[in-house]
């Protein structure tokens, strides 16, 4: 029997994996993928709750998240390309003109 808790745990694990990826991976493309993972973990949470509560609102939210994520990743990749053209690398450690 797969219960709500299973879905919540799975999405929490996915979210944390994504967050860890954003923080520790150095390749820009991988970081963008990790961000997608985080957003999809959120989507899974919404869907699970939506099903559990019997309310449609969560699923509508997911549609919006998907649209926004697509736009965000489009801009993200565009910026990555622009950075690569200038620097010849997508390693975030090399992108350090300004101190953090």
């Amino acid at each position, binding site marked *: 029997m797969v219960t709500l808790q299973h879905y919540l745990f799975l999405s929490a694990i996915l979210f944390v994996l994504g967050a860890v990826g954003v923080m520790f991976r150095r390749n820009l493309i991988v970081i963008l993928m990790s961000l997608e993972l985080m957003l999809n973990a959120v989507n899974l949470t919404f869907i699970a709750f939506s099903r559990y*509560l019997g309310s449609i609102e969560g699923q509508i*939210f997911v549609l919006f998240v998907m649209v926004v994520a697509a736009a965000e990743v489009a801009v993200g990749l565009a910026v990555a390309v622009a950075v690569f053209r200038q*620097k010849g690398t997508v390693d975030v450690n090399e992108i350090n003109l*300004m101190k953090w």
Partner: protein
Amino acid sequence: MIPIPEVNLGGILPALVLCLAGLVVMMLGLFIRRGAVATAAVVSIAGVLIAAAANTPLRMMDKQAFAGLINLDAYTWFFNLLILISAGLTVLTSVRYLTDDGLDMYEYFVLLLFASAGMMFMVSANHLLIVFVGLETLSIAIYVLVGILPSSKKSKEAALKYLLLGAFSSAVFLYGAALLYGSAGSLGFPELAKYFKAGQISRMAYVGMGMVLVGFAFKVAAVPFHMWTPDVYEGAPAPLTGFMSVGVKAAAFAAFVRVFFQSMLPAQMNWIEIIWLLAALTMVLGNLAAIVQDNIKRMLAYSSIAHAGYLLIGMVAGKEAGPAGMLYYLLAYTFTNLGAFGVVALVGRKGEANVMIDDYRGLAKTNPFLALAMSIFLFSLAGIPPTAGFVGKFTIFSAAINAGYIWLVVIGVLTSAASVFYYFRVVMKMYMEVPETQPAELQFSPAMLLALGIALVGVLYIGVFPTNYLNLAALSVKPLF
């Protein structure tokens, strides 16, 4: 039969006008070969003015639209106006900046208008979904704007950092929203308020609330979620930095206050302590870090972090006086900071060659008006009477004292005393020192002169005659309570 919901576009007319103006600029840009910037600026200003006219009826309204998703009230009216002021002034300060650098980019104005429309949705939201959509509309436009300078490596790097951290914070915000949804069953503010009022708040809802708070803290650049701010502010084009420090911050604070006061007020005891801590950290770290900067954009970035701390005091103070103080403060800050960044854009010259504090040496000799204007803006940032910044700080601090948060006010007063040091260093450089090399003549454009004039009049006028504006702010927060 599916009932057709009542659709009334009147309420979101200001945002629609801005979107339309953006589309018009986009179309015109295709047909105009040269000088697209000037045309784009004229159309943008027209759009901003029409939107301001369309915004006026909101002041008297107090209702919801779009099946309860959008709030049309005085609070929305006030922030729409604030956003329009900052968008308008940014357009004026940007024209010369872009043409001087040989950037004939009408896209800049398109994105600026779309970002402003996103902010308007964000401040009028009555549902977390609208907050999210507005937030992302504005963020994605701003990511592109930050990286718009084609040859600047810093600009690209800033865009990248902003995008990564912005998307990360959005994901955290969303996860919080998902957890709140699971607890309350809906993300509409009235439903959330009902859930929090009922008193049986689950642990999951607390976690969700905390994550939403972190998402907002990122956007308003509160310590310890401020790491992106100095880099992004340094790398972005100077007029846009002004827009980010004012427009984006105001919109984020508006939604922050709306979400926490309208829907989570019963759980106030739980979040107020966290915001207390954020405010204290933000003020201390922002002001201390600003002291050691030698790049003026970085210094103003840390100063804007510090100002987020003062604004958070208003949130801690609560009741009606705290948020009302924040509204007045944001209005004062809009004029002050846009003026200051206008001067930075002007002095910076082509390719932002002069953005060090040392580049301001002897500005009073070569350009007395500019030095005077910059001094007044810096006085206002430091909170010295008779400028608007003083009245803003005074109202927020007195609201906090009335609410019993003496220690927070002590920290606020001490740190703003420390801030006088770094603001005055620039004034000293302008008036007391002489430049090493003879600088080239600064060229004012009429638009820049107009923008600086408006900012200057704004800072002084609402500082000397604050009563009307304080009443306005008090009136505008009424719908929240």
